[in-house]
């Protein structure tokens, strides 16, 4: 094959990414050159994410394609993660359209940076080489830092930005340190080579160095996923950052980290599954306990969602820890469902804050009397986050993960003492979900049953549409709810199929560790 056709192949393969890049270019200059048509900027983003996900959908059946000599891989995982991040981006852009009043004149740049973050997640999902992975991850981090500090007049936003920057810097250093070990030992940055070398070279998985590499990788992944103890930035940044950014951070950037976890831990270091299982189990327990217990005492709605997102990652880790395709696809299913219910909750928070300027949980009381649709929509998202089966999407997600976790065997956890880690994790998860159900449904009961708070009483009976455009966030909320209801009822099988398809490429490359059935 000559260079030209190689090039055109690569170009066609990366077309979905190019679409987003095009939107980035347009939206960055649009406000400058066509200030009169400012309102169009988000529509470029919406259009681009839509077109890009359509293009990705066409790539679903092309099998595994390696571009640029194996630097970038297009397989089902890349495609499905790409589609999902585009959907997330679409929803977040919708939300932002109801948030523009806080962004002042810089709304155009906001969309530009948001789209950059999206394209970097798409690249992350497909990267099969350390340098590309690192560059994409850093692009994502820097975009997120900039987004977090976007409200320049707001001290909290600035604080969030700086804290996020410093933490990111710390974690970048650990990740690079880990990469340097990997390169030093294997002499390559290609995943496929590393995977082989890791097994064949003298590097027995028992060595201190391989444990160190794993921990360093996990620290970077854990930071983005906000796993305890790498979670410290989460509440501050979630609270301080503009709400659409928080929504993006809670799922969009996690999606990227999730992709790294799958590519690196499950595939490249698949042989060392025993060690990362051990480490991740501990982190999962910590995340579930810490996340839920601190969320219990939060007064700010966004902060509560922040801490609870830590707990949700803990639940997903149970699936990853299980390691076989059953567990990982259950975790993937959880991630999809979590994405919709969480984004829905954030959209509702934007709608509420736009009208009341409040983020306090107590202020949500009696909302059903003034804004019944908003109250019911938010209730639905929260009930699902709590894992109650109405509609059962959230419940099924928990159930799949937990029942996968239950089937794990014993592993040593302390000196020679072994434990049935799977059932331990599930019991912890169920126990910690009691406070979770409490703090989620507390909001629901407040909204539906309690007497209206002063803030709600002060709301006008009809929405004042001239003040702020609420259409975007309402559409986002409605979309999330429809998706949740569908996943809970008709599309369970389909969603599970998607989850399985997306992780299938991971298990082709190395021997199957799961003799058991698949979901």
């Amino acid at each position, binding site marked *: 094959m000559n260079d030209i056709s190689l090039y055109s192949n690569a170009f066609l393969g990366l077309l979905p990414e190019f679409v987003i890049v095009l939107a980035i270019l347009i939206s960055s200059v649009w406000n400058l050159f066509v200030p009169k048509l400012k309102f169009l900027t988000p529509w470029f983003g919406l259009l681009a994410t839509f077109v890009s996900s359509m293009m990705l959908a066409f790539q679903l059946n092309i099998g595994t394609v390696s571009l640029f000599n194996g630097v970038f891989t297009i397989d089902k995982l890349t495609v499905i993660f790409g589609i999902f991040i585009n959907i997330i981006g679409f929803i977040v852009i919708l939300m932002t359209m109801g948030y523009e009043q806080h962004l002042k004149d810089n709304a155009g740049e906001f969309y530009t940076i948001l789209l950059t973050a999206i394209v970097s997640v798409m690249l992350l999902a497909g990267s099969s080489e350390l340098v590309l992975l690192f560059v994409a991850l850093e692009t994502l981090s820097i975009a997120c830092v900039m987004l977090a500090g976007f409200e320049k007049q707001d001290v909290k936003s600035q604080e969030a930005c700086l804290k996020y920057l410093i933490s990111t810097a710390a974690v970048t250093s650990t990740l690079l340190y880990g990469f340097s070990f990997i390169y030093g030992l294997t002499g390559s940055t290609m995943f496929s080579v590393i995977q082989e070398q890791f097994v064949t070279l003298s590097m027995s998985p028992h060595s201190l160095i391989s444990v160190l590499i794993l921990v360093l990788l996990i620290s970077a992944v854990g930071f983005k996923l906000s796993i305890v103890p790498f979670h410290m930035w989460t509440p501050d940044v979630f609270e301080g950052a503009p709400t659409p950014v928080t929504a993006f951070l809670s799922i969009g950037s996690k999606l990227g980290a999730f992709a790294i976890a799958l590519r690196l831990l499950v595939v490249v270091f698949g042989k060392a599954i025993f060690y990362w299982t051990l480490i991740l189990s501990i982190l999962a327990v910590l995340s579930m306990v810490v996340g839920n217990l601190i969320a219990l005492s939060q007064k700010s709605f966004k902060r509560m969602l922040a801490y609870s997102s830590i707990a949700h990652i803990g639940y997903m880790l149970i699936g990853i820890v299980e390691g076989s395709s059953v567990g990982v696809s259950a975790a993937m299913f959880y991630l999809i469902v979590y994405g919709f219910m969480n984004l829905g909750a954030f959209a509702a928070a934007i709608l509420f804050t736009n009208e009341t300027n409040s983020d306090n949980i107590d202020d949500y009381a009696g909302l059903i009397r003034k804004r019944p649709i908003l109250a019911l929509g938010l209730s639905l998202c929260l009930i699902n986050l709590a894992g109650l089966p109405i509609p059962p999407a959230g419940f099924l997600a928990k159930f799949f993960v937990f029942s996968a976790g239950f089937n794990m065997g014993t592993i040593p956890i302390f000196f020679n003492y072994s434990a049935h880690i799977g059932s331990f994790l599930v019991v912890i998860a169920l126990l910690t979900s009691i406070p979770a159900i409490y703090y989620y449904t507390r909001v629901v009961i407040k909204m539906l049953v309690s007497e209206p708070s002063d803030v709600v009483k002060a709301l006008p009976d009809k929405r004042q549409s001239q003040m702020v455009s609420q259409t975007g966030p309402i559409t986002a909320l409605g979309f999330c709810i429809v998706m949740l209801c569908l996943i809970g009822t008709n599309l369970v099988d389909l969603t599970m199929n998607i989850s399985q398809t997306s992780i299938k490429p991971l298990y082709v490359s190395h021997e199957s560790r799961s003799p058991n059935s698949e*979901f």
Partner: protein
Amino acid sequence: MSISINDAKHLIESAWLLVAVPFLVGFLIILGLHKSKPLSMMISIGAVGYGFIHALLIMLSLAQHSDLGPWQVNYDWFTATNLRLCMGYLVDNLAAMMLVVVTAISLVVQIYTHGYMKDDPGYSKFYAYLSLFTASMLGLVVSTNLFETYFFWELVGVCSYFLIGFWWQKESAAQACLKAFIVNRIGDFGFLLGIIMFLSITRTLWCESPILAYVSNSGRDLGSIIIQAYNAHMLTAPMLSVIALLIFLGPMAKSAQAPLHVWLPDAMEGPTPISALIHAATMVAAGIYLVARAYPLWLTPDGSLHSLGLTVIAWVGGFTAFMAATIALSQFDIKRVLAWSTVSQLGYMFVGLGCGAFSGGLFHLFNHAFFKAMLFLCSGAVIHGLHGEQDIRKMGGLFKSMPITAICFLIGTLSISGCPGLSGFFSKDEIISASIEHNLPLGILMIVTAAMTSFYMFRLFFLTFVGEFRGHGHPHESPLSMTGPLMALAIPSIFSGYLGVNLPALIQGRADTSFFPSFIHFGSTPIFEEPNLSVMAYSTIAAILGFVLAFMIYKAKSLSFNTAIVESKNTLVQIAYKFSLNKWYFDELYLTILQKFILPVYKKLWETVDVLIVDSMVNLSGLIALGLGEIMRYFQNGRAQFYAFIIFFGVVALTTYAYYFVIMP
């Protein structure tokens, strides 16, 4: 009335309508029909009225064509290898009986609501909730598998929170709602954990058939799977006990068994029709129904009745029955006395199921539903007639002003006390004789409880309806829409007991087939226990004893040890009285544990983490990062460098742990 086999088939196959119609009606009212009060009322009552007729016809069909049941339809919901989650509907004798109970009680309650809630602003909304509540319960009844049951179980729970907290303006209603919620969560936690454990052990055995099904033709139902798993050494008796006890936490919370009973008496805060519905047919019956439905879970793996699971059920029920009865002795709120009596009677039902009297326990559920619904509706009529007064010390002599209510209440009282010939007598007797045979101390406890039941119910009756009126205002009889349902319920309250007893045979002192036990039984053939005439005599004597005591104290006033007890200087007597009055201090105990133990520990934990670890580390890292410190100083909150520090620290700690503590040894 005889039903042809084809009609019977059609009736059973269309059983899904029973669930779908009230659901649809509930949503319709919420979506728009609530604007018209009469329309909301009519379609809601119409839906459940249709349901009642349909359920009755189904029961008749099954009684006449025993080869028709069990009938089930499963729709796939999620499928994978060895995991086929299904939603569907199952109609068999047990479900048919329950369908009749739920729709009958719901029907009278909804008619009654029209009179009771007439002036309430939430009239239409109340009908919507009632329809949804009934529909969820019906869905639970026709569930084909444990999973579906769990979904409807949660739905029943959610509806009940809305109804208990219906008058959210009242602080106590909001509190009661929260309490019901938390207690039920604890139960559901056990339920779900039990299901997951059971499923993960037996998953491979279910093959491609609907998972956790109650009934199947291919030998893949709960009972058979347990035996298969046991024979294949996948499941041992202790494992099954653990699973059974975990799942039992669910019924314990829903059916208000000690120590998870605390929510039910507080749930009185909802409007009275809801109390009647919750106490008689829906919420609390769900727990009993689940135990009966999934009965094989509580047996030993090889199907024997002498299992740990059943023993625990029996003793939990026995203890609860006794405890609740002692509490009911000293309460002054008319609805609370009834609430505690429900807790106590539910205890009886669990004793019945736990002692192997499967049909006896369910028979009591059946009878209890009618007379307890009637008693609650009577109490509602009293409260309505007295303009919201609930304290029986401010009642009395109401017989004259509200005769219909009083007569109905008397019938209910006689029935629940076990007066020979009324419905409660037969079912309670079956339970007591089973418990005596199974476990003598438990049987004696049940007889003592029977005496107490009779006492507190007659105490309630005498204080409310007999003697001088001690309150203010002019009590009046309720409108027909309220008294009508009372009278309608009086009929089954008297006669439903005869469904479960073969009178001619009984007179000759032997057991023979009767409708109820041959209709509903566990195992392939019904068990007809010998009627134990001596047990009947004992329990009758106990009931009479309770009645005589109540009569002498509250009517003839020839005995006055009730005041003697209250004013007694004897500390032991005082302690006993306080114990009963304060409901055995369960609420206080839980509150103390929460406030003195759990909350402080929770707070202390975070304080320690915050002050000791975080702050000292912030200082430490501050020293380390002195070079960087110049930038940080402008930062209002000095914790950013700490965040970075904790990341490095986490890496070191994890590596150390994984390598030196696990891998090296």
